[in-house]
């Protein structure tokens, strides 16, 4: 193993050296070519013609440009002294091509005036060649065929070469600084809608063109969103792609997956299955598909197993995706789509944790607790979703439903010891619990939306633009648990107890929600001045019934039989009716000066009354509670946009809202379970509802520029809770805790964040900077042994990422993160702090078109008060070799956690405590993987 480690370290350093040596050797590209385009027959000058410059040696495209308003061009960044070819194309003209060489001394070549010949006849057998980029009205069209890439290139490889388009490290695509919100294939979402699936799987050769255009925003016609549509070639509308692969490694580590995806003009079907014990988990079939994309020829920073995940996961999963579009070429106002997916997963999970917690209970009094937990879990889960969507030019209608049955068996063993200030053992508790849950969840929702601008006179004015939403949720659960708890006190032995208790807890929960919105109330008001206001009436009604049964029995140590526990056994039913009528008044102002700016200001205020009735019926008298809460919940918001043409686009908003949280039955009148010695629950019937008032703001700036995009966003939220429902804890000298809830005002929280992104393109290389930073501050009250303590905690995170890529050769990412948290207990005058630092360097280098080396190293440092610093590094490396003409076979050798240092730290502060520890985590392994990617596009006969 040591040899392998050494091998990977040396090869990584060697490769990085090669690249930089090569980069230094590479000649700079100081040349340029210029000229002007004319048609002498019709006396036209040819604007927006495409000028492309190719290297004669390998026919690769070096640079290109569109001719300007004067039909002139000046293409920069070209090599001097080598044979090049100029190609000029324009609709209706025969392509002009000519070889030339830029003299090394002059560094520029002038074609003067190029006379283009009109294409008189359009014959079918005329060779059709397309330029890399054309403007068709307001639509930018990228023509992949013109790029002359490797035969295995995918569409992502083309987009990386398109000026103005930026593919960011976090998956966002921007064009001239503005984010592209939708990526479609022939106007439809492609296998779940994640752009990655289309961009990394669809080969260059099946694409006719990629279009980038603006789609108007239906709610504000002056606003628009950027959309990308990948248009497939006529005979390539059908295709099949997939993956089958398996790997085996040291410590019996394995991973295997297989997927097959078939599509045609109307239908998409994907089948996928995977199993591993290296923490590669998925939530649904799309997640699985996204992790088995083919990828093209470029260098990608690709992440391996999740080394940060808790415990060891061994998932085995399979899924099916299905989508049918009744229209071959859907539009926003002409969509008729049926989608369905099924996902089944069996997951084994193991985790051991080792924690130390310090809790402040008085001025100088602290309790020190150590605990070891061992958790094993097996879960089986199935998910079925179906959705139907119908969009017409006057309405939008959709129905969706999901069904999710499953079960989970888990066992948990824990041993915890508590010590006092003098470090002497005060109490110990050992507990074992075996749990089994079976569940079925059913959701159904239906939504009807009339389009805002639909002025069909047949509709009564009150109902114009209305929307109706209905949701139904049903949950049916059975939780069974056997809990053995052995508490020993070294201070007061009379409190020792051994309890062996069984729980059986069927829960049935059913919710109906109806929301009706009538946005055109102002249509009915004839009074002058009011018509310009946008007045809406909204009603939200929620009906919920929760049936919760508890069957508890204890082991009778004398008879050895389980006997019913009449105190804890219960039958509880809670009916909740929540009614929220809302009146919303909104007014918009705008100001514009054509070709200069467009500014928009919108002010909205809502009056909402929340009336909630909570009725609990139980076989325990003290739980028969019927309470009605009523509260006025106002909200307001102001938002503004400023679009300065040719300069920038900015938006800002500030909003105020109020919400109400009512106490639940387990907070008002719970049944106290004596096995929970460290968390004995008591009730408080006097609990009132809590009210949260919050103010949020955000600001965004986007450059409206074609090159070197810059964008930033910042925002924040301040919340104040009146009558917050907080814990009041009574801790005795043996660390036994009784907890009940009380209302205390004065809880405050503040969260602020900022994101800054900047991209720079320097001939062939791309550099991206991303900075994310945030601050969270919380002042929260709690009660410990009768004394109110306000705890102030503050945490902060900062991530700086620099991403560099050079053509298809090298991708490099450096990331540095720092997070900090501090918690201070004002009453006890104590303070806990912790800091985490992490520095990561990832690199991927294509040695040849077939061979790739990747490596990433992360250095972690953890510091916290009262504990020694923890430092560790994770270093992963892999080599990939691709075989066959289509790169369909991939052999991968990976070495993970080369330094064998991976550690998962537990580090968090609470209102009056600090917990630190470690837990089970994936550690060093080496693995060899073989994958095959079947790929077939344009099926026979299609």
């Amino acid at each position, binding site marked *: 193993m040591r040899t392998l480690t050494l091998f990977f370290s040396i090869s990584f350093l060697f490769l990085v050296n090669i690249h930089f040596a090569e980069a230094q050797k590479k000649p700079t590209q100081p040349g340029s070519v*210029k000229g002007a385009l004319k*048609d002498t027959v*019709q*006396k*036209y*000058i040819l*604007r*927006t013609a495409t000028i492309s410059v190719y290297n004669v040696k390998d026919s690769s495209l070096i640079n290109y440009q569109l001719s*300007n*308003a*004067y*039909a*002139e061009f*000046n293409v920069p960044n070209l090599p001097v002294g080598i044979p090049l070819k100029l190609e000029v194309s324009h*609709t*209706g003209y025969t392509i002009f091509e000519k070889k030339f060489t830029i003299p090394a001394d002059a560094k520029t070549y002038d074609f003067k005036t190029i006379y283009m010949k009109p294409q008189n006849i359009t014959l079918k057998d005329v060779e059709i060649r397309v330029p890399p980029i054309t*403007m*068709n*009205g*307001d*639509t930018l069209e990228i023509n992949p065929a013109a790029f002359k890439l490797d035969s295995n290139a995918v569409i992502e490889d083309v987009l990386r070469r398109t000026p103005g388009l930026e593919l960011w490290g976090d998956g966002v695509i921007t064009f001239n600084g503005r984010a592209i919100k939708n990526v479609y294939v022939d106007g439809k979402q492609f296998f779940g809608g994640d752009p990655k699936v289309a961009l990394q799987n669809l080969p260059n050769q099946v694409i006719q063109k990629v279009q980038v255009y603006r789609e108007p925003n239906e709610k504000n016609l002056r606003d628009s969103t950027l959309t990308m549509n990948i248009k497939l070639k006529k005979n390539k509308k059908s295709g099949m792609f997939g993956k089958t692969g398996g790997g085996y490694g040291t410590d019996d580590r394995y991973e295997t997956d297989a997927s097959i995806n078939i599509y045609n003009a109307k239908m998409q079907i994907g089948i996928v299955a995977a199993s591993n014990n290296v923490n590669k988990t998925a939530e649904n079939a799309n997640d699985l598909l996204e992790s088995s994309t083919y990828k093209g020829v470029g260098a990608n920073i690709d992440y391996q197993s999740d080394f940060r995940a808790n415990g060891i996961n061994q998932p085995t999963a399979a899924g099916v995706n299905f989508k049918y579009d009744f229209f071959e070429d859907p539009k926003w106002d002409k969509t008729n789509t049926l989608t369905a997916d099924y996902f089944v997963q069996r997951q084994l999970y193991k985790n051991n944790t080792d924690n130390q917690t310090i809790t402040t209970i008085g001025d100088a009094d602290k309790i020190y607790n150590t605990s070891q937990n061992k958790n094993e879990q097996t879960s089986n889960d199935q998910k079925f979703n179906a959705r139907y969507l119908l969009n017409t030019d006057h309405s939008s209608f959709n129905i969706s439903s999901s069904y999710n049955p499953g079960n989970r068996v888990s066992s948990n063993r824990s041993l915890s010891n508590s010590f006092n200030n003098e470090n002497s053992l005060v109490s110990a508790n050992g507990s074992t619990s075996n749990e089994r849950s079976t569940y079925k969840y059913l959701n159904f929702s239906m939504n009807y939306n009339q389009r805002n601008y639909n002025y069909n006179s047949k509709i009564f004015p009150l109902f114009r633009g209305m929307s109706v939403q209905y949701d139904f949720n049903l949950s049916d659960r059975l939780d069974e648990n056997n809990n053995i708890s052995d508490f020993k006190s070294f201070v007061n032995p009379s409190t020792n107890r051994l309890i062996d208790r069984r729980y059986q807890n069927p829960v049935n929960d059913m919710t109906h929600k109806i929301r009706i919105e009538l946005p055109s109330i102002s249509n009915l008001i004839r009074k002058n001045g009011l018509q310009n206001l946008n007045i809406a009436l909204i009603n939200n009604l929620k009906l919920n019934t929760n049936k919760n049964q508890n069957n508890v029995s204890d082991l009778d140590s004398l008879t050895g039989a389980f006997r019913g526990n009449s105190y804890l056994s219960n039958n509880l039913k809670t009916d909740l009716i929540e009614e929220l009528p809302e009146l919303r008044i909104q007014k918009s102002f705008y100001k*514009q*000066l*054509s*070709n*200069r700016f467009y500014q928009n200001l919108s002010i909205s205020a809502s009056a909402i009354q929340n009336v909630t009735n909570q009725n609990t019926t139980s076989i325990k008298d003290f739980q028969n509670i019927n309470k009605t809460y009523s509260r006025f919940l106002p909200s307001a918001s102001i938002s503004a946009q400023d679009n300065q*043409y*040719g300069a920038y686009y900015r938006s800002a908003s500030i909003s105020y809202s109020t919400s109400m949280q009512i106490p639940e039955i387990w907070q008002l009148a719970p049944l106290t379970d004596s096995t929970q010695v460290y968390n004995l629950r008591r009730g408080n019937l006097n609990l009132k509802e809590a009210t949260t008032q919050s103010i949020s703001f955000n600001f965004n700036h986007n450059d409206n520029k074609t090159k070197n995009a810059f964008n930033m966003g910042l925002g924040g939220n301040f919340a104040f809770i009146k009558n917050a429902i907080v814990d009041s804890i009574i801790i005795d000298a043996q660390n036994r805790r009784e907890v009940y809830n009380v209302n205390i005002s004065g809880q405050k929280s503040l969260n602020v964040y900022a994101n800054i992104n900047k991209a720079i393109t320097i001939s062939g290389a791309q550099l991206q900077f991303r900075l994310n930073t945030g601050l969270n501050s919380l002042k929260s009250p709690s009660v410990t042994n009768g004394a109110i303590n306000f705890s102030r905690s503050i945490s902060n995170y900062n991530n700086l990422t620099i991403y560099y890529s050079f053509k298809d050769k090298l991708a490099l990412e450096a990331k540095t993160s720092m997070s900090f948290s501090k918690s201070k207990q004002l009453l006890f005058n104590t303070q806990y702090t912790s800091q985490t630092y992490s520095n990561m360097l990832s690199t991927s280098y294509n040695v040849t078109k077939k061979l790739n080396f990747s490596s990433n190293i992360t250095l972690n440092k953890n510091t916290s008060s009262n504990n020694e610093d923890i430092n560790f590094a994770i270093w992963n490396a892999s080599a990939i070799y691709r075989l066959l003409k289509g790169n369909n076979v991939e052999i991968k050798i990976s070495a993970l956690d080369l330094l064998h240092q991976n550690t998962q730290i537990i580090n968090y502060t609470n209102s009056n405590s600090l917990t630190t520890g470690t837990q089970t985590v994936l550690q060093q392994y080496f693995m060899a993987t073989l994958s095959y990617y079947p790929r077939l596009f344009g099926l026979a006969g299609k």
Partner: protein
Amino acid sequence: MIKPFYYLILFGLLSSFLFGASAQQSYPDSSRTVVLRIDPASAKGGAVSDVFSEVEFIPLETTKESLFGYILHLEIIDDCFVLYDADTKAVYIFEQNGKFKTKIDSKVLKAANGKKYEYTQGFAVSRLDGKNLITIETDKNMLYFDTNAKLIKKTALKSNKINGEYLKTYFNSGYVQTNYIQINKKDSTIFDLATFNQNKITGKYFPAAKDKYLNGDSYIADGCGIFDFDAVDKLFFLRPHDYHIYLATPDKLLVAYKFIFPLNKMLPADFLTPGKYKGFARMEYLAHNGEIIYGLGNSFLAGNKLFFTAKQMNTGTDAKSALMYNLKNGDLTSIADLQPDALSQFLPITDDKLGNDFEQRNFLVFYKGNMYTSYSSLTLFNVKEQRNGKKTKYNAALTKLFKEGSINDNPIIIRLKPTKN
């Protein structure tokens, strides 16, 4: 690219009128009609100086008072530019050299009208005692201003009577009125055009079909209406989806030119058949058939040069819509393809394919043998940048603008004088 929806004008919702077939109607005189067979695709380009003998760029002075968005409507009265800007909803008056003179904004209208807040949706030119005045219709009054924004006359509007002032265009000896309504006791008729000699009606043309408006049919009427090309007692009149250019005189309406386009670019014969294309069906048909020439627009005659647009939904880079036909030698020129030369200081004379002023509004006015168009400072600064550092000697006005101005300045008016032949 498809032209935006706001070109669409709905001739509808006039349900208060009852249409009778009995109204007397006049027919245009087609005895001297000139037939022109034209294929826009064959239009040629050329240099700016091939078509125009004078080109002048007139930057409109930018001050806090004079800052406006774009020129929706331009007229020249007393040698002053009078323009309406829909962004600021005001009428601006500039001197011939671009110097700001005054404006008629809500403040002026409020003072003229009394207490009530007012703004204007546009203006018309009226003739009073042989003098042209800026006429603005407000809630209760018709206001007449001179080019110093001085209120000359105020007439109260009658609540139930339509004031035709906005619909009139004056000859030396009479006027024409579009959408002329003849009110009868039992029923009323609306005519597309009526001609007047002095104040006497001489002809009522194109009565609305009985069900034309009630069907909710839609027409695309951009570039249609009356065009004054500065000839004594002669005006051009254009109708939606009609391949004729009509010549209105105080006494009658003539069919001056009839256009015949290649068959695959002509509208279907039943395109205007009532009830055939309901609702937005015409719009939809044209959206799917972008190459079809759906009508004529913006026509002016300067000597032998007949300027007009052959309107197509397809406004892509190769579309040739703004044209000039030489009646003497039959040459067809595409205005967008005229190459800037020394005469135009190497600047484009229109913003066709660069902005949207020319595409949407074409030439704004024809006055004393000159044609006027405009484009934004944003476009002007952009094209100047594309000169790639080539040295061009600009005249004093442009030198000053490039030195002191910015992309945020007021639009520029371009005066073009067509050559004699």
